[in-house]
């Protein structure tokens, strides 16, 4: 996991060309150009993804892994080709290590239920951080309550960063699982995954990384990162929703019991006993999200077709610009200012609730997220009930930041 970086000067990045690839960006909202600043919740989709999915439905659709007929064989080949694209994108050793799920939440629940059941005994410790999304908290609470394990929480610093020393104070001999975000969805903080992995493995525990926000902004090499599980969602990576990925080392997947039972995941079934298919099929009970997987594959093809290093530099530029310009708006307070952060910026405005801000901004065509961002424990730590959040993607521009700032000035007129 290294931030995408060029060795030499970055080439010019033409965001206007990128924007043409995303049909929705041409539309208006409330009579104003759409300014979509909620990519951390879900990104918009390039034409290539929409076309690939339409083509699959119109020309090559049937159920997978079943039919002894050409169309089903073709659908299966396309579905498995998407798995290979994911494998290459994250540099997994084998496509068998790539499990398709319905999303990152599903993937974390899978690991918590299956690996948690295997590894956790009463008194064992699960280590989380204060900045986790609910989806990386609640599944662990469920398995904690079933196994008698205990949850420990690593605190954040005031700027939203987490120091490795804080992990060192909490991870210990009783730790069995460490589950952390790659990048915080509220603060944008990039976590020091390699160092956390090293600490985790020193005590023989396993590390799960919630990569929903990470894989969008950072180059991910699961082998180099040293984690044991990496999960992400398709819909935050310019792909469709209803598809997610669990990557895990093959020896872990082999040792883990199935999460759900059903068709496809079995080797043999009798009423006395059933046996399981090999990974990843063991974890893909029922008809999988076939076309969403193909759409995710197309999103990966799309990302591979652009200069991702330049795209990452562009996103950083937009973030830096936003941090400077937002700070100039009277009453605005930036939340999450860690040195190493991705293009997500939470903020509050003195005297205006984030929900009211979002309503006024919306009427200017500006879409921001307002609320607790599925991170209520983090809101408690920050001492706020909610924040507004602008998050940027490869198609975001400085001009959109200007539109946000203008809308915030209008919000001051309306609300204060």
């Amino acid at each position, binding site marked *: 996991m290294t931030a995408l970086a060029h060795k030499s000067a970055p080439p010019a990045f033409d965001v206007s060309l990128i924007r043409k690839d995303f049909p929705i960006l041409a539309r208006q909202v*409330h*009579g104003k150009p759409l300014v979509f600043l909620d990519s951390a919740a879900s990104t918009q989709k390039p034409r290539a993804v929409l076309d690939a999915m339409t083509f699959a439905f119109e020309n090559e659709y049937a159920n997978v892994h079943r039919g002894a007929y050409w169309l089903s064989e073709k659908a299966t080949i396309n579905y498995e080709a998407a798995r290979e694209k994911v494998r290459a994108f994250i540099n997994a050793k084998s496509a068998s290590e790539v499990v398709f799920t319905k999303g990152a939440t599903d993937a974390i629940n899978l690991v918590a239920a299956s690996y948690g059941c295997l590894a956790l005994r009463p008194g064992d410790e699960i280590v989380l951080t204060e900045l986790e999304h609910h989806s990386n908290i609640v599944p662990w609470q469920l398995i904690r309550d079933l196994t008698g394990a205990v949850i420990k929480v690593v605190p954040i610093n005031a700027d939203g960063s987490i120091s490795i020393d804080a992990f060192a104070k909490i991870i210990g001999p009783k730790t069995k699982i460490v589950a952390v975000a790659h990048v915080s969805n509220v603060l944008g903080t990039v976590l020091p995954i390699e160092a956390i992995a090293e600490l985790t493995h020193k005590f023989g525990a396993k590390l799960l990384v919630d990569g929903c926000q990470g894989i969008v902004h950072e180059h991910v090499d699961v082998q180099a990162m040293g984690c044991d599980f990496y999960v992400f969602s398709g819909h935050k990576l310019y792909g469709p929703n209803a598809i997610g990925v669990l990557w895990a080392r093959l020896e872990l997947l082999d040792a883990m019991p199935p999460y759900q039972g059903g068709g496809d995941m079995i080797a043999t079934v009798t009423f006395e006993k059933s046996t399981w298919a090999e990974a990843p099929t063991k974890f893909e009970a029922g008809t999988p999200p076939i076309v969403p997987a193909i759409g995710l594959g197309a999103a990966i093809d799309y990302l591979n077709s652009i200069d991702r290093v330049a795209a990452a530099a562009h996103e950083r530029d937009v973030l830096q610009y936003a941090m400077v310009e937002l700070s100039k708006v009277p009453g605005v307070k930036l939340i999450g200012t860690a040195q190493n952060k991705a293009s997500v910026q939470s903020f509050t405005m003195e005297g205006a*609730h984030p*929900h*009211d801000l979002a309503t006024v901004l919306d*009427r200017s065509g500006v879409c921001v997220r307002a*609320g607790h961002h599925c991170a209520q424990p983090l809101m408690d730590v920050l001492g706020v*009930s909610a924040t507004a959040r602008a998050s940027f993607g490869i198609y975001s521009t400085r001009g959109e930041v200007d539109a946000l700032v203008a809308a915030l000035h209008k919000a001051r007129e*309306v*609300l204060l």
Partner: protein
Amino acid sequence: MNAVAHVETDDLKVLYQELILDHGKSPRNARLVEHATCTAKGNNPLCGDRLTVTARVNAGGMIEDVAAEGKGCAISIASASMMTEALKNASVATARQVFEAVHQLCTGKADVASAKAMLPTSMSEDVEKLAALRGVRQFPVRVKCATLPWHTLMSCLDGKVDATTEKV
């Protein structure tokens, strides 16, 4: 500015009119009722808004005191504040009728005249004030902000412990 833009700005001005902003910034009865006979907690899981409604109802079914305390947006805080002003010294039966009228105003099912017609004439002035909340009808996702305090009050009067915007 074109006609469309005018309409939108007007929508915002109606939603965030002076009365709403005033109650949102300086909510009345933002406290807990002493010797309350009932309490309920309201929760909007979408945005994390939370409030506690307490009331003291006497043997004759009159609301002697009612208050709402919590965190939320301008709409929910203003709605809670105006609710407590309107219903202090009202009967529980009237409170239920006012709830229904406000609900219909906020969802666009009633205008001010028909809301008034639903209630005793003694409530007419209060309904005119509460009608300020009907700006939310142009903002469907914000209707819950306006109605949360009212649902919480109904839970309170019904002897329930909590209310959520997701069940109603």
